[in-house]
């Protein structure tokens, strides 16, 4: 393990040998809570903050949909993972790829959960658009402000879901079940804060 006094500095990294430089980068990645740079240019690309989180959200959705009964009559939770991305992506950076990816993920949820086509597309787009509109007021604020904004985004998503379901089927969904899934989705605020910390707060070149 490297001693703290031997902590490499970025200005002296250029004169290091390749192995020392590799060790220094590894040290920074492990102990300075920074993301290891990918790609030749060291730039955070769309795959880092768009494609990999989207893939992870889809995988998590598929895994949590597995029919595994738990003890005491409980079931696996079913949070709506793309809601976290629909909120975090506009805060990280306005992008043309993000709404397209969200549309694809909404269609995936429609097919996978057997919802009417377009149901999750509209709901996710509403969250994305609302966050994009208030982006300048949230970025740089305290963590509690971000958590509050995410709570409002979750509330918007499920309110729209209830309205669309009522329009589609003529039946108001049971609100206790709505609150259960809303709570499970709200718990993904940790995922949102990790995304913002990795791609918004700690990467000044991104802005």
């Amino acid at each position, binding site marked *: 393990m490297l001693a703290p006094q031997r902590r490499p500095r970025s200005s002296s990294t250029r004169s290091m040998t390749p192995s020392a430089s590799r060790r220094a980068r590894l040290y920074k990645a492990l102990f300075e809570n920074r993301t290891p740079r990918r790609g030749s240019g060291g730039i955070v690309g769309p795959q880092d903050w768009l494609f990999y989180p989207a893939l992870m959200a889809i995988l998590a959705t598929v895994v949590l*949909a597995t*029919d595994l009964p738990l003890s005491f009559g409980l079931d696996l939770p079913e949070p709506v993972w793309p809601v976290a991305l629909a909120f975090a992506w506009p805060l990280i950076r*306005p992008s*043309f790829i993000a709404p397209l990816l969200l549309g694809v993920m909404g269609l995936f949820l429609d097919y996978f959960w057997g*919802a009417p086509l377009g*149901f999750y597309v509209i709901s996710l787009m509403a969250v994305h658009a609302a966050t994009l509109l208030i982006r300048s007021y949230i970025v740089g604020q305290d963590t509690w402000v971000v958590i509050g904004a995410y709570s409002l985004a979750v509330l918007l998503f499920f309110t729209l879901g209830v309205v669309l379901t009522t329009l589609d089927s003529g039946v*108001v969904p049971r609100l206790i079940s709505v609150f*259960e899934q809303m709570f499970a989705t709200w718990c993904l605020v940790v995922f949102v804060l990790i995304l913002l910390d990795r791609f918004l707060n700690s990467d000044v070149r991104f802005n």
Partner: protein
Amino acid sequence: MRYGDNQPFEHLKLPITWGVMILVAAICVVGALMFLGDRRGGLDAASYGNRAGFDRAAAKSNNLLSTPAHFVSDRTNGIEDYFFAVSENRVLKQKIVELEKYRDAYRQAKELNRRYEVLLNLRTEPEVESITARSVSVSRGPFNNNRLIDAGTSKGLAFGNPVINEHGLVGRVVGVSPDVSRVLMVTDVVSRVPVMVARTDARAMMVGDGGGFPRLEFVRGGPDVLKKGDQILTSGDGGIFPRGLPVGEARRGVDGVWRVDLYTNRGPIDLVKVLKFKDFTQLPRAEEVLRTPLVTDLLPAPPAPSAASHSPSASSASASSGAASSSAAPASSSSTSPSSAVPRPRPAAMSQPVAPRPQPATEAPASASPASVSGG
């Protein structure tokens, strides 16, 4: 080199936020058009027909995930059964002694019921073939409640087949592919199941709302037709579900609405049984059905009404006759309901295709003759 140097559009600055908003609006419009064009509420075979390929892929991935868990769970249950085998065996022997009495009573009642059916020449529903499948994926949210099971058209499943498990009614098949089927749970917001109360024979509609306790709506009858703990069965009205499948027990919710505590809430829905019941077209041939006598034609005539209340009693008699005919022959209720308002004409001959009229028991169809001989 800075961004934009030597680029053809270096002086063109796109307002990215507005561009993204326009893109979001465009996707919203596309999503709204898809939502408006979706026919999920109609619950016909075409509404889920374009999802078969996706369901196959999703079920395979979920099957990969659930197989190891089921393997471990089965082994754990096996170990538990081994250690508790002696005490369980003792309990089971006591249950066998108790159940033997019910078995004998059941056999007697079944034989008696068969004789009554033969005597009255009643049309009974045919035996329904079923197959077993395993649930591999589930959607439990408030907006969608459905499952994927690992059986499809290769095993003879079709759209609309009812799905049950060892406790009661689970739902029905709304999407099929060769290996995988999608089951709409009775708790889904678009699910409507015609049910009846076993104690009072009152009819109602069980409406799913995304929770585990569907609502009972359109309860017909007085205020006493429903009590807490009444058993709820499928009524068979509409022909989607066969009559008599156990559904649950009646409960009054905190909001004062009658709800059904589903029997399927008593345990996990793992293995399910799919009944290959389609609808009333599966019943015997139409000619044979239409020749089945009505119960009102076989029962003795009611006493003659007094002259003072002649017309009201006649109207009530005709109404009760219509109700009895609809309960005895639900398949032909749609064809006979228009004629129930007017006096039913006597048929001229069996070969006449129009004016379907039930024949008396002495003119029973050939298929029922051997049974009537043995019953008589």
